[in-house]
């Protein structure tokens, strides 16, 4: 139990969890995203109706969350690719912090103009 707790209290474990959960959430969102874009087949007016629906505060909040998750999954994925494919360098220890910072910056860049 103690070892299990210690392993899971490591920043790399939290990075793994964020990467996996963000990937799951994005996969679940994809069908809705494709459906929404597909509405364009029924014309620009239909797309506008859908975009007006997304102006609700709760939907905007969820959108900002999705952008944050997408950025987090990207940053976490780049970190993994760097760890797996690049020769080990000291700076790779800082990748977790860079990944988190980049994700938050992208989320804020979206959220602050809503």
């Amino acid at each position, binding site marked *: 139990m103690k070892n299990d707790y210690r392993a899971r209290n490591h920043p790399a474990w939290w990075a793994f969890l964020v990467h*996996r959960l963000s*990937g*799951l959430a*994005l*996969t679940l969102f*994809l*069908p809705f*995203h*494709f*459906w*929404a*874009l*597909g*509405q*364009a*087949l029924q*014309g*620009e*007016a*239909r*797309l*506008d109706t859908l*975009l007006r629906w*997304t102006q609700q505060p709760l939907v905007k909040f969820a959108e900002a969350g999705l*952008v944050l998750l*997408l*950025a987090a*999954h*990207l940053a976490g*994925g*780049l970190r*993994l*690719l760097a760890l*797996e*494919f690049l020769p080990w360098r000291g700076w790779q220890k800082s990748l977790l912090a860079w990944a988190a910072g980049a994700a938050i910056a*992208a989320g804020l*860049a*979206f959220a602050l*103009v*809503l």
Partner: protein
Amino acid sequence: MSSAGQGYAAVSDAAPGSAAKFETWLWIAQRASAAVLALCVLVHLATIIYAVHHGLTGAAILARTRGNVGALAFYALYVLAIAVHAPIGLRALCQEWLGWRNNALNWVIGALALALFIFGLRAGAAVFLA
């Protein structure tokens, strides 16, 4: 033979050697699609932030995508990479968190990949043709 407790090599009913080869191909596909997606998601994020700065309307979106062959090609590549990447990730989650390791999982994941690819292309075609 039960597949329980045999780890990743047990996900296929095929011979152990071909199961291991299958896992290797999935690993390569996951990393290759990740590399493509890294570029696509960067472009996507930049486009999202640009779009919300310049008004998110149907007209504005379609002005960028309608008849835009470059955007359609980018979108098709993006969708292909997603259809490869997301199902493989979901497969790992099903194996590790749900303990689902039999061959049925591979069929379900394959069907999900096909569905994502078809519906993704349909969405891309929609904003291209609109």
